[in-house]
């Protein structure tokens, strides 16, 4: 059974359409990533899945239950981590977890067990008595995750959980997610960080309320059909101008100490050498693999066309 099924889903805020006639089916037991920049509609989609939206068109089924009619059942079975830190800054770590345990009516016996488990995961035990407001960004995320897990949900829905968090904590967080997956919890994550896409089992690229592509990260990277080269030179700005005149239709981007050149046809070794003859400022050229961002941009572009 799919953990989430959406059909003909549209979400409108006044004049603008946040989600446009979306179809989605998320299988159980995996980490599913909703990848997209700000304004793509990620938060709207996530809120719809969590039964937090009052108006939408189409149908949404979460764990087999209808989001509009059976919201309470769904809420008892999912764990949600919203985008902004949504816990009580003036309660301690333990008090926060206990509050949500009671809200979800976790029995006293269960509570102790869960708390032990969650502390093991999050390594927050030494901070149990610290006020949530005094935790670092990464620890806050782990606390929020613990509160979302206290009632042993089958499905975890996270909205940009690592936003603004330092890279080390981010890595740690993703490790925890994969550990959770190993325990059988299905996970749906939204993120604007393209590099996190590669940490998911299945992803969809969301842009302006529509899914542009769906597949495993590898499939999506493989679908990229252009060629990407990295060029270096002593004076990058002039080199930039030079390449622009040579290949007016291509994508050029300055990256610190190199230029990335993306074009549809392959550029042969001879071509580069010829250019070097003409413009001595060109020092080196290398074929490089595209990043998720490169693929996203290409997909976005062909979608607009």
């Amino acid at each position, binding site marked *: 059974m799919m953990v989430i099924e959406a059909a003909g889903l549209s979400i409108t805020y006044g004049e603008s359409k946040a989600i446009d006639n979306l179809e989605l089916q998320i299988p159980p037991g995996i980490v599913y990533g909703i990848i997209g920049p700000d304004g793509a509609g990620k938060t709207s989609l996530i809120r719809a899945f969590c039964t937090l939206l009052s108006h939408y068109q189409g149908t949404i089924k979460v764990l087999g239950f209808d989001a509009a009619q059976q919201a309470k059942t769904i809420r008892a079975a999912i764990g949600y981590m919203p985008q902004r830190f949504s816990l009580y800054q003036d309660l301690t770590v333990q008090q926060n977890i206990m509050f949500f345990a009671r809200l979800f009516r976790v029995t006293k016996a269960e509570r102790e067990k869960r708390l032990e488990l969650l502390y093991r995961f999050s390594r927050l035990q030494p901070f149990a008595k610290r006020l949530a407001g005094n935790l670092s960004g990464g620890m806050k995320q782990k606390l929020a995750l613990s509160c979302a897990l206290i009632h042993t949900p089958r499905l975890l829905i996270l909205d940009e959980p690592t936003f603004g968090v330092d890279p*080390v*904590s981010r890595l740690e967080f993703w490790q925890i997610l994969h550990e959770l997956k190993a325990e059988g919890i299905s996970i749906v994550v939204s993120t604007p960080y*393209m590099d996190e896409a590669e940490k998911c089992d299945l992803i969809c690229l969301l842009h302006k309320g529509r899914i542009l592509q769906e597949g495993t990260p590898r499939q999506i990277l493989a679908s990229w059909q252009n060629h990407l080269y990295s060029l270096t030179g002593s004076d990058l700005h002039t080199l930039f101008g030079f390449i622009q005149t040579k290949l007016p239709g291509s994508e050029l981007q300055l990256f*610190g100490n190199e230029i990335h050149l993306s074009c549809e046809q392959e550029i042969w070794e001879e071509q580069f050498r010829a250019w070097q003859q003409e413009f001595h400022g060109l020092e080196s050229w290398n074929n490089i693999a595209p990043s998720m961002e490169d693929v996203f941009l290409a997909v*976005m572009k062909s979608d607009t066309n």
Partner: protein
Amino acid sequence: MIQTKALTKRFGSFTAVDKLDLEIVAGEIFGFLGANGAGKTTTIRILCGLLRPSSGLVRVNGLDIIKQSDRVKQSIGYMSQRFSLYPDLKARENLEFYAGIYGTRYKQALANTSELLELFGLNRELDKLTSDLPMGFKQRLSLVCALVHDPPLVFLDEPTSGVDPQARREFWQVISTLAGKGKTVIVSTHYMDEAEYCNRVMIMQQGRDVASGKPAGLKQRYKVEKMQDLFVKVLEESGVQIG
């Protein structure tokens, strides 16, 4: 452009920045990477003249940060996208305000930034209420406001958070052009990919410089392919627990 020698900042018994030696040349794009609490935010605040160093030398644009802080502030532009624009003012009015507090006449400000406004397509949006502008335009406006007084040095704080990839690339094109014209750009970011846009980066940990240099060179030295992996490796080797 920027030099620090043995820069130290202490908050009580806690040392936030520990004898930092920094050298940033004009026309460079320099990135500060690091976890929170590593000292990167504190360092930037000191360089902007917002915090006094406890000890050590800091020279910005040839000026001493303590003795000539007013003039230093005049030569710095600061872009903090999330906080610097007033949503209930029109775009034009935001520009006017920032021009005003930097002592620049509005006409002069427009002249300073006309190319940028044109490039960004902001010329047509000047009379819109800032809160009505889409995210990408807000980001661009924020940058323009940081440049009204044509400063030789610009600080960018998480400059592309929340912006779509296309706008992000275009933004960095502009930054590169600015650097090409001789402006020094300092970036502070959590987004490891952003480090690739920089000429040099510095990773800080516990107030110290644990790794600095060109991104490509660092990746080679630590034998990693991606910036995220570089970060992790560097911190691992400097004794920080991961995972």
